[in-house]
Every structure is written in C-alpha cells, then in structure tokens.
C-alpha cells in the first residue's frame, strides 16, 4: 500500500447502537434506555431548529437487543443471542418452538439487515461489559475494515484517559456469529471490569463518551473530513485456554493465578504463573510463544470453557480515508453489482 494512498468509502447514513444483547451487561442497557429517552426529547426540539446538513445527517437506531433477558437480568433466556447470527441460523427454518434468542435474532436481522445485503445498516455498534479488566475494547472480525480502525484511532485520540484497544478475531464472514456482523461494518464495544448485574458510574461514563465519539466520527466522515492513516496496534486472537478440570465431573480444579488476575494485555511469557490449584500449586503457562492475555476470568466464559484468551500484538498500517463523492458512489455501486453477478 502506498503511504499517501487515500481510500474513498461509501457514506454511512445508518448506524445502529445496540444494548442489552446480554441482559445483565448493564452499561449498554442503561445507555440505550437513556439515548431513547433523549431521542424523544430531541425530536421535538429538532422540529423547531434548522436541520443538520444533508451530508452529515446520520440516522441512529437505538436497539435493546434482548428484552426478555434484560427483564430477568440474565445473560440469555435459552441460548446466547450473540452466537445466533451465523448465516446458517439466519437462513434456517422458522419455528414456533425455536429458542427465544433464535426468534429474536431473525427479528434483529430483519430490522438491521438482512446480513450481507445492501439493505443492511451501515454500522453496528454492539455494547457489552466484561468482568475482565480490559478497559475499553473494540472487537471486530476484520483487521482491514478501515471504518472500524479509524473509529478506534479516533477514540484513542479523544479519550486519552481510558485504555482503548482493538481486538481482532480472525473469523470469516461465512462463520461470523455476532450481532455486529449484521451491519455492513460493525464492532462490539466491550468495557470492563464490571460485575454482571451492576452499573458502575465510571464504566457507564466511558461507554457514553465512547458512543458519542463514535457517532461524532461518523458525522465528520459523512461530511467529507479526511482521516489521516498511520500505524495502529491491533491484538489478534490466537487461542483460548480452559481451566484445568476434573476428568469425571468437569468441575474446575484451579482458579486464575493471583499474579495473572486483572493483568489483561500484560505480556504472558512461557513459564509465567497461569492457574493456582485449590491445594495451592502454581500451574505455569506452557505455550512456546509470549502472548497477550485478555478476557481473563470472564464470568460468562466458564461455561464456554475459556479461562482466558491469548493474542499477538501487531502493527497494522491503515490508509487515509474519506467519504466517496456522489459520483464515486455511483461507480462503486455499479462495480459492486457487477461483482455480484460474477
């Protein structure tokens, strides 16, 4: 890639902000509720004020993804909603007796998608909390979605007091399973540490400011601002490690070692303490490569067999970008259509 390359990308007229995808991750629940309340007020005011510039205008959809789980303050009712957005599930048979979250996933896909089609919203920002000490993370499937990476760069610049990181899960679009994969672009905004079922004011504020900065960026982008490229640091997921378990009962036999607890994104070297058994023995990390741990001791991952995840840190070069002009947009659409026909 040329250093001075400028990539022109289509406008982002529709953004979805989703909270409560997991019903007990409360920052997103409360933030979306508040934004919905404010939207009711603002709509009245907007009728009297001048309208935003046509180009700048962003239509923001606020969505409470899993209302039943929210009511019960649980992660999910029948099955994890944020694993239901695979093509297989979305194109699967419709059934009266389907698990609640599958029915809901199909509804959300109709509302925000369909996934993979030109009608899908341009950007999905899905709000989450974690019990792990991860600060603010943007989690995405791609390490070359310039929209997501530029939003990341923008947040880092605008929120210097908050640790902000980008996590890349190398999953193909065929296999992508989460709500943020429904939009043309998407990412999860994950903030921790926060216990599930709790609202911590510092975490709520970080999410509120993060979402605000994200929407501001989209408006700037749509109005023609050029965003300069450069290097960003990305954490690319390599593997998960499960807890040591009893062979017969499968119950865990050790906890995250006290020297690893809360040390998300601190490099873990081969031989470093990993787990501490209940009889006090230290179990070391046996991998060959030093890697960066994250999602250390996330509550919801016990049942998924994940004690922590490990990533490589990489420097990714992102190009400068700006929004396509109308003329550029037309040629792009023609190209997109002819690609599809091929």
């Amino acid at each position, binding site marked *: 890639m040329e250093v001075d390359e400028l990539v022109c990308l289509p406008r982002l007229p529709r953004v979805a902000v989703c909270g409560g995808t997991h019903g007990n991750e409360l920052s997103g629940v409360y933030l979306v509720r508040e934004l919905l309340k404010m939207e009711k007020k603002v709509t009245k005011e907007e009728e009297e004020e001048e309208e935003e510039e046509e180009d700048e205008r962003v239509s923001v959809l606020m969505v409470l993804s899993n209302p039943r789980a929210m009511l019960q*303050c649980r992660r999910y009712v029948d099955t994890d909603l944020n694993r239901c957005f695979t093509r297989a599930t979305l194109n699967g048979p419709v059934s009266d007796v389907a698990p609640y979250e599958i029915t809901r996933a199909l509804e959300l896909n109709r509302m925000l998608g369909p996934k993979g089609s030109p009608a899908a919203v341009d950007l999905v920002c899905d709000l989450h909390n974690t019990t792990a000490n991860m600060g603010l993370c943007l989690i995405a499937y791609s390490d070359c979605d310039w929209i997501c990476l530029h939003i990341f760069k923008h947040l880092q610049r605008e929120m210097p007091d908050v640790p902000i990181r980008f996590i890349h899960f190398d999953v193909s679009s065929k296999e992508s399973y989460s709500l943020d994969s429904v939009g043309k672009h998407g990412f999860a905004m994950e903030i921790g*540490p926060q216990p*599930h*079922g709790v609202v911590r*004011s*510092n975490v*709520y*504020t970080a999410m509120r400011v993060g979402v605000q900065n994200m929407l501001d960026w989209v408006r700037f982008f749509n109005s023609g601002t050029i965003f300069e490229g450069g290097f960003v640091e990305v954490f690319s997921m390599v593997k998960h490690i499960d807890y040591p378990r009893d062979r017969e009962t499968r119950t*865990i036999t050790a906890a995250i070692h006290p020297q690893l*607890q809360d040390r998300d994104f601190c490099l873990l070297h081969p031989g470093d303490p990993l787990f501490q058994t209940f009889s006090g023995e230290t179990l070391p990390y046996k991998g060959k490569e030093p890697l960066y741990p994250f999602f250390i001791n996330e509550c919801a991952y016990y049942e998924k067999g994940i004690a922590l995840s490990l990533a490589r840190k990489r420097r990714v070069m992102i190009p400068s970008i700006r929004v396509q002009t109308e003329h550029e947009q037309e040629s792009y659409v023609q190209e997109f259509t002819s690609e599809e026909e091929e």
Partner: protein
Amino acid sequence: MSSFNSIASLEEARRVAIFGGTHGNEMSGVTLVNLWVKNGAEIQRKGVETKPFITNPKAVEKCARYVDTDLNRAFTPENLSAPRGDNQPYEVQRAQEINRIFGPKGSPDAYDVIFDLHNTTSNMGCTLILESSKDHFNLQMMNYIKKAIAPSSCLVLLNEHPLLKYSTSRSIAKHPVGLEVGPQPQGVLRSNIFEAMRVILKHALDFIELFNEGMEFPSCTVEVFRVLERIDYPRDANGNIIAMVHPNLQDCDWEPLNPGDPMFQTFDGKTIRFQGSGTVYPTFINEAAYYEKQQAFVTTRRESLVASSIRKV
C-alpha cells in the same frame, strides 16, 4: 447487665456446619464446600463435628442466586412451620429440609455454629456478619479472628435492626456467623478472595477448638458497624433507576459518608448528595443482588460492644 468480672459459662460447640451456595453464584463458598465435601481434613478439629453443606444445589447448578426465591430470606417462622408440599417454592422446601437437618431453629437440638459463606460485588473486604449484640460467643470468635489475621482487616457488621434483619439460613443455629467477602463478580472465582475466606474459616475453627478444650477468653471490646438504614437508588415514576452510585462513593465501603458528600450521579452527570443528619459508614455499596431489593447501600454507625469473658461449662 453483666459486670466486667463475670465469666459466661457456655456449652461446648460440638456441632458446626459450613454452608456454601446459599446463593448459587457466589463462588468462593460453593468451591470451598465442594472441596471439603470431597476431602474434609482441613476443617476437622478435635472434639468438633464439622459438616460442609451446599444449601441450594439447584441454584448452584444454574449458577444463579436462586431458583424461585432468595433462600437467605426464606427461614421465616411461617415458612418453617408450613406443611411440606411440592407446590412450595423450591427454596421454601429447602429451608424446611435444612431446618430438619441442622435445627429445628430455636430448639436445643439446633447446631451450635453455622458459618454461611457469601460473596459480594461490593468492596467490603472480609466482613463477619453478626445477628445479635448479645452473642458473646460470636463476639469473642470475631475478636479472635480479627486479631489472628491482623494487619489484614476483617470488619464486623451487626444487623440487629428490627425491620431490616432477615431470616437467614444460618439463623437456624445457636450461633449464626455470616462471612461476606468481596469484591467478586457473581459467577466468578477470584483466587485472592477464595484464599481470604479460607483463612478466616481456619481461624474460626481454631477458636472453637480452643474454646472446647477449656481456654478462657477474657472480656474484650469489639468494634462493630451497626446497620441503620437501607438507601435505594433514585427512581422515576415507573420505578426505573435514574442514577448510579457516585464515583466518589463507589468502592468506598466502610469510609465515612458526611452530609453533603456526593452519593449518586444521574445518567447525564448531575450529582445527588447525601442528606443525612450526621456521618454514616456505608456498606454493601452497589451489590448486584440488591438492585431488585431496592438497595443501593446500607448506612451503619460505629459502636464498641463489650464481650463478656467466656469459658466452657
């Protein structure tokens, strides 16, 4: 009123129970009790029968606080005397069963001591919960534990409030002891929290062994925090929470809260201040399970209780 010179002669504590999983997602107790059910060597003491017990197995399996209703509120006289039946909420049935095994509550056959293991999302550190200011055995035990773990701290919360006191699983015993260690998210096992709880229990059992062997514990003063009132989140007309625990109060369990100090922060950043008439010591600040019980935190006041000298009969 007992004079400082009198020694209270008390029965030996022969039967002791350790309850875990009263709330199925409070993992330290679940893990410790499961460990000790498999191998109880660590909790054995001469002359004491120590029984580890999972009180709410269905909730533990679901990793939920409870199935139908909070087990730690279910040991009311009404529930315990109600006729057995499958139509009762699961936890009421459990309460009746536990009362049969470890009680009956209030009778001479009840267990001598029950330790009930809990975690909290609040930054309470190690807390011992006392249900009566006149339980000299418990006061002496708590004094012993505090001294044993110093300089680490272990505070005592006294809940004797006529309205706010509740019918706990441990209340079946002659000497109920609550152990609350935090902060720990529900469903998560943190090794430091787990170890802290383990150490406190070790000292508690040591105390019982020493007492049963005939050791006399001289009169002492024990600092406690007495529960005053429950403070709810500010809510709108529909009952929805409209503010969060203020960042200045978050994690400041046991620190003085003065009139005028920030208490809550609305979602758009405004500060709501504490309007009390004097300084209080808040605790259970932002406990996840208490949102549904209309409690953002409880206020307490500091008191010194005098424990009589005690010796076994």
